């Protein structure tokens, strides 16, 4: 038997001609063109998002005169900032309040989320519904009752008051997220630990908690950004200058007559940096945590 060279047969009547024969782009070229367009669009979005940061940083290194003329750079706005604002103290205040609030939020949300997801108890569905309903309540509508309540127990002008308010505001979302994450952990795994001799408490600590690190990181980052950037709660519950957070300090600076726009820019940059650093460190977990339940 001899092998004959194989030549493609011409398309029969009614059959479509190959794309190359029609003179159109082949699938690979079409894909490349498509990804080029996507890249271009993403680049435009990136420029739109990043330009304000560039503007902020560029003008933070100018004097008011240089800002007006948009010409030249100087460090004087930074020296003015540190002269007018106790940046170190206020950053420390913000950090303390953030960390303490997040610790409370994590303790409550991980244990409550585990209970909602893995334990069977009467009224579980109804209580979870209430937690989800709490997500819908706007901060502004409860801030006055919160103020009245905390003032009655003497927690205005204390770190603890602000920490409790932030923890109360952040816990519903965090509980919802943690419960969703724990629902994704196989019941078999929890039951295996119970059969292995652990009670539900130690199963939570030894099995569920280590497995939920991505969700914990997500909660921590989102809450950090939210609490760090908040102004309303700080304004109401921490009016004492010694306890101000960095956002409160910046607001006070902008309200004053002595500060210039470059000084405000420098202050805004200082206040934004910690949140950006936290985001950059944990963004991998953040994406994983936010896409919970999407796909397999």
């Amino acid at each position: 038997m001899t092998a004959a060279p194989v030549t493609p047969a011409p398309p029969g009547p009614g059959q479509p001609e190959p794309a190359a024969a029609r003179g159109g782009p082949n699938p690979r070229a079409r894909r490349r063109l498509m990804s080029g367009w996507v890249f271009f669009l993403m680049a435009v979005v990136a420029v739109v998002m990043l330009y304000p940061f560039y503007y902020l940083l560029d003008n933070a290194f100018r004097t008011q005169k240089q800002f007006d003329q948009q010409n030249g750079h100087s460090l004087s706005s930074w020296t003015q900032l540190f002269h007018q604002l106790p940046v170190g103290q206020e950053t420390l205040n913000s950090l303390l309040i953030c960390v303490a609030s997040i610790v409370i939020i994590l303790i409550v949300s991980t244990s409550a989320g585990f209970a909602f997801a893995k334990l069977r108890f009467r009224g579980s569905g109804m209580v979870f519904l209430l937690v989800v309903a709490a997500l819908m309540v706007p901060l502004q509508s409860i801030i006055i009752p919160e103020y009245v309540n905390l003032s009655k127990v003497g927690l205005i002008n204390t770190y603890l008051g602000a920490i409790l308010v932030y923890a109360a505001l952040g816990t519903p979302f965090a509980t919802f997220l943690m419960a969703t994450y724990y629902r994704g952990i196989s019941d078999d795994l929890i039951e295996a630990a119970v059969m292995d001799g652990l009670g539900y408490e130690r199963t939570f600590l030894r099995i569920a908690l280590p497995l939920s690190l991505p969700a914990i990181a997500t909660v921590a980052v989102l809450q950090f950004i939210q609490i760090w950037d908040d102004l309303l709660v700080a304004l109401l519950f921490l009016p004492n200058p010694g306890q101000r957070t960095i956002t409160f300090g910046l607001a006070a600076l902008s309200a004053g007559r002595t500060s210039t726009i470059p000084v405000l820019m420098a202050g805004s940059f200082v206040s934004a940096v910690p949140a950006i650093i936290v985001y950059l460190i944990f963004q991998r977990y953040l994406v994983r945590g936010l896409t919970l339940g999407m796909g397999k």
Partner: protein
Amino acid sequence: MSRIVLDGITKQYPDGTTAVRSLQLDVGDGELLVLVGPSGCGKTTALRMIAGLEEVTSGTILIDGRPVNDVEPRHRDIAMVFQSYALYPHLSVFDNIAFSLKYRKVAKPEIRRRVEEAARILELEEHLQRKPRQLSGGQRQRVAMGRAIVRQPRAFLMDEPLSNLDAKLRVQMRAEIARLQRALGVTTIYVTHDQTEAMTLGTRVAVLNRGVLQQVAPPQELYRRPANLFVAGFIGSPSMNLLEARLERGDGGADAVFGGHRLRVPAQVMSERPALDGYLGRDLILGIRPENLEDASLLHDPDPESVIELPVELREELGSEVHVHCAVGERSGGAQVETAGAAEAAEALRKVLLVATMDPRTTVKEGEAAKIAVNLAALHFFDPDTGERIGS
């Protein structure tokens, strides 16, 4: 090692569904009892009740004579192997196996000794430092087994531990589980929906259907003397042929008549099952296992009263044997059909087929009639109303 007794246990859910109904079982010390049945028959629920993961609605579970209904799972001293293996993904193989020992405050050198011993038995020594995600399905299954055996529990509970493995590995692991269970001598309750697994593994097999225990017996007993139509149809592959028949008085004995065919019921069968006398002149269900049917042309001098001639509808080659599907009659009733193609399909569905497992040398062909010899001594009879086996 211990004895587990299920004394009429029932599981009813709040919505009224009864998953297990008055289950009565006595699992002896060191025995491997297999719970088998179709999906949703209540076998896993029964296992979970023994483990303490499901509350018992009524009845009592006794381990070594002590009621454990209200005892927490961790205090029952029972190890369970899950269908999904349930390995802790953040721990190494060593830590997975050692996990329960650490929480039982076993001394570290003893933990190491037991884990290494289990790893040696299960051939996991090279993988002790790996994480579960780095293991194959078979290796994960062995880790799950290792986690159970290091505890030296009073009993093992296994919930379809082989169902996630491919067919070849399943056969291999099945043999390993049987070997391990015999070597350790630990009382084991094994749940599966696979009747081959049940028959090959179990010292005794309990067949469940819709939460009700149908029969509990050694594998051969289940195969030879199924207690009712469900067990007859469930145990054996291909399943037993069940035909509507009539028992008639023949010349000097009884004949089973079905679809225009007549089979002589041997006098020995009639004498062994005296209850059959009561069915003379009445309808009953005749059961014939496929392996009790053979191509008559391959037999030396077959009894003419045991041979029936049937049209061959389908021939399936399996290498070591041939499955031959023959039409023996039609079901009563039938679909109303209008188009020509649908009419043919409906006709095929109406036919009552009889499956025969034949020697590969058989020459029967599709579309032709075949002479089939029936092993008359191995006929089964069931009451058409109760579905219960007639006679012993």
